């Protein structure tokens, strides 16, 4: 197809392709945004204790619960492998029971994600507990100095 038969000069055909690409990308972006908004609930990796309270859950629904391990809440059961602790998002809390090995980063005040089911007694029975790392990287001496000077900010989840 030459420029003369189609009645268009090369410059306008280039502009037409430019508009086609821009329009295509815009529509694609809008479509992706709509799809992702619609699937919001399936894309989130975990629910917070507040989400858990507000959401209508099927009994025995398998889900992930995330938040901070509440200070002073970690209790080891007598069998040595079962741990009970409380997950908090600083407004609501959920008690969790987990039998198994905990990751290295698991500690009080640490962000965690646990997978399991909410029992009828309100205790979340976890089959898996993952530690969540925050975005702060620093040498141990700096962390100690910050804690000492009172500038330490608790991880905000």
């Amino acid at each position, binding site marked *: 197809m030459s420029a003369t038969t189609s009645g268009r000069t090369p410059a306008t055909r280039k502009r037409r392709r430019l508009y086609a690409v821009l329009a295509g*990308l815009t529509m694609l972006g809008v479509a992706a945004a709509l799809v992702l908004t619609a699937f919001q609930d399936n894309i989130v990796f975990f629910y917070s204790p507040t989400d858990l309270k507000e959401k209508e859950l099927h009994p025995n629904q398998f889900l992930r619960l995330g938040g901070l391990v509440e200070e002073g809440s970690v209790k080891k059961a007598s069998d040595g492998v079962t741990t009970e602790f409380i997950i908090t998002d600083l407004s609501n809390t959920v008690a969790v029971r987990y039998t198994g090995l905990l990751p290295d980063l698991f500690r009080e005040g640490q962000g965690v994600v646990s997978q399991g089911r909410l029992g009828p007694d309100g205790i979340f029975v976890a089959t898996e507990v993952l530690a969540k790392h925050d975005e702060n990287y620093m*040498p141990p001496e*700096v962390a100690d100095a910050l804690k000492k000077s009172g500038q330490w900010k608790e991880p905000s989840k």
Partner: protein
Amino acid sequence: MHRFANPNQFLRIANPLLPWISALSVLCMAAGLYLGLFQAPPDYQQGESVRIMYVHVPSAWMALFVYASMAIASATALIWRHPLGFLMAKASAPIGACFTVICLATGSLWGKPMWGTWWEWDARMTSVLILLFLYVGYMALIDAFDDPTRGQRAASILALVGAVNVPIIKFSVDWWNTLHQPASVVKLSGPAIHPSMLWPLLIMAVGFTAFYFALMIVRLRSEIAAAKIRNIRLGQVHS
């Protein structure tokens, strides 16, 4: 810009630059690895495992950067029919795919001791896996036709469609709850990473970027040569 889109013009500039870019890449990677693995302090929480970051984070940045470059090269090639844009994207794809594999592998190695899992289907990890599939799909598609121009067009459209994934990867950790931590370096309130760890990381990033450009120029040279040979052969057949 049209002047540089001429392959010969491009080679006249790229060829003398190549040794300098290669030297920069080797120097920065050697310095960055030494600083990151031996000089930088361990992290207050992660301990020595934090050193995986000095390879993981630059390769993740490069995986995104190379894909964005491919998408721009494909768009200019589609709109203005510059053969160099197609060749540049084609030369970049395997490099970007390798960066993505390195990013996923090192992330997995870090995830096991830190999170307690090799792999989880969270938004960040899943979108990076999709990026790898886009690279592989692009490489398969561009060579899937007997007529190279048809393959180039189809693959370029795929590269453009896949570009939607780039902002999703970057912002996935802000838009949704993810297991992966939010951005530490590129964020509004300034880096949340101590300078003693940030410098080795940035030096590694410069090294990785120079490595990409050096490798891309070498691959692009061979792509240009292959295209010239093809044209000569076609000329012989038709004469």
